[in-house]
């Protein structure tokens, strides 16, 4: 305990109830579970630990107002996405008859066949995952508390502790140790987080050029990482910066129902997410006509 930063210690001593206690309980429980797992002694005496757990997570989702970005999606983005992504020359692929073996080229994944365009199949944001891994938790699991509270502050949801699945000896990581935490945001909270990100945080990340043009995992998800310095840009952290002894970087994954990278990027750009542009060299003009920006535009997109 001596290694714990002063503010963390204060955090323990001052908060007799509240989420911090729940967090530390969660961490403690996780480690006891890990210990049980590793020692292999499954005694029933430890089971009454779980009855003491403070369960603080709200069980139900409450809709306490209309979400600005959701309204924007419903009224503007959806219409525009329909116009932009509608495939007017869609032809369904021939179905592979039963019993025919499909030879794969290399080890590429089989992609699902593109579906017919429909107003019901407009890409939509489904959930946002916020996840952080803290190396400092290797030395003491209580170092995770700072990141835990930070993620909770910025998302407004109780994070879930992530335990390592495997042990890696050179990193002094043992299987089952708490190593990170994550939050899955859905519904209004998701749109609130998105709003905060694009309106407050991303514009203040000075050196960040925007998401790359190649962003996306080809199945409609886009992920991005944030450095530890970005955490202090969130208004919740900014006003309480001293209370967080360790800043941590974190990952944010946007899960959408888009089926291609293009659709996913269009959707996110509809929410004002900045995308960087690859600087292409101007095409050599055939005629003597000077290359105006519009003609470059046409060439590049052709």
């Amino acid at each position, binding site marked *: 305990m001596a290694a714990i930063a002063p503010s963390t210690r204060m*955090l323990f001593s001052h908060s007799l109830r*509240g*989420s911090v206690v729940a967090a530390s309980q969660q961490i403690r429980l996780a480690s006891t579970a890990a210990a049980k797992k590793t020692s292999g002694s499954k005694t029933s005496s430890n089971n009454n630990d779980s009855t003491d757990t403070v369960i603080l997570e709200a069980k139900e989702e*409450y809709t306490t107002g209309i979400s600005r970005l959701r309204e*924007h999606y419903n009224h503007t983005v959806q219409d525009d996405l329909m116009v932009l992504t*509608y495939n007017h020359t869609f032809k369904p692929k021939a179905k592979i008859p039963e019993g025919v073996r499909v030879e794969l080229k290399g080890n590429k994944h089989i992609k699902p066949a593109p579906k017919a365009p429909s107003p019901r199949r407009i890409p939509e944001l489904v959930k946002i995952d916020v996840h952080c891994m803290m190396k400092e938790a290797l030395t003491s699991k209580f170092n995770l508390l700072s990141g835990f509270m930070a993620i909770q502050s910025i998302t407004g949801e109780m994070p879930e502790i992530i335990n390592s699945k495997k042990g890696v000896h050179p990193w002094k990581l043992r299987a089952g140790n708490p190593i990170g935490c994550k939050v899955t945001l859905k519904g209004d909270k998701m749109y609130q987080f998105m709003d905060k990100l694009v*309106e407050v945080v991303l514009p203040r990340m000075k050196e960040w050029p925007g998401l790359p043009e190649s962003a996306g995992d080809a199945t409609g998800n886009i992920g991005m990482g944030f450095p530890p310095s970005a955490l202090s840009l969130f208004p919740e952290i900014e006003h309480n910066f001293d209370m967080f002894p360790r800043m941590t970087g974190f990952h944010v994954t946007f899960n959408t129902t888009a089926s291609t990278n293009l659709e996913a990027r269009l959707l996110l*750009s509809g929410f*004002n997410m900045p995308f960087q542009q690859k600087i292409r060299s101007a095409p050599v003009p055939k005629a003597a006509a000077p290359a105006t920006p519009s003609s470059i*535009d046409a060439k590049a997109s052709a």
Partner: protein
Amino acid sequence: MSSILRRQMLRAAGSMRGIARSQIQVVPARLSLAARSYTSATSPASAAAAAAAEAPFKSNISTTSSAGVSSTKDLIINGNRIVAGAVVSRQPLIVRDLTPFEQEYFLYQKNLERESAAPFGAEFYFKKGSVAERRWKQQEAERLASQSTFGSSSPSKSSKAEAAAAGSEGAEDEISEEDRVAAMEAKIEFVDRTTEADRKNDVRSLERALARTLYLIVKKPREQHAWQFPQGGVRVCENLQEAAGRELQEECGGNMDLWFVGRVPIGHYNYSFPKGFAPKTETSPGANGAKVFFMKAHIFAGQVQVDNKEIVDFAWVTKQEMKDYVAPEYYEAVKDMLSDF
């Protein structure tokens, strides 16, 4: 699509700067697919006119590779003159009004959420003895006092309220500090949801009906079908988007920052010319009707300038208001591509 992204990047610097604007604006600005929303110019008419005189706004109209070939000949296919129309819309700038039922429902849900929420670790978020902590306790006490009737008030809650009230009592001696902090804090003023243009019913203003999508319609100097979307004939060697952009430039002036949503039309409208009407026989011979293709566009800044030649008036109207302006058959043809919100 890549044109959006490209545009996005061009505007990235703008959106970075835009944070200052969005903080000042109390009315939440809507976002757009092109990373911007329509913004009213800081000084209305004079600045806009000056800007128009200096340099017209650009839009994302891309030219075809054969754009170098300029032809004034009209495009006629199967006896129909091909015409490009532009559905220029201003997106909603504020969220819609709530119905009384919705207000009640959201309030109820809010109370439920508070009841079941995790206890707030005030010791963590506020420094002990700080003004912020005291103010928070005071607010909490007021809230609990006002909501004591809601749900089943548990004894622990009321004791909490008392404790908070007791905490706020001993704050008399530091009032000067509190005043100092309050003075430093920015005062938030809420802007009215109805604007000056709403009160005057100024349909030419872009700052009316903030919660609705507005569409641009223009009036031509004629008796029949005077009001309609800005439109004009497509020339040979020109695509629909170019034609729509050119017509907007000709009819409404270059003082509009537009973004065309794709290059595909969102709807079409057929009509045959009345008997005895020969539209510019030298440019379009043999046409006995027209086929209008509507291109969708968003406006981000600027305003229409009436030249009194091609158009004599214009209006920014909602879908429902448009019914009073345009001909019934025209409304029937276009109503399905317009937003109800």
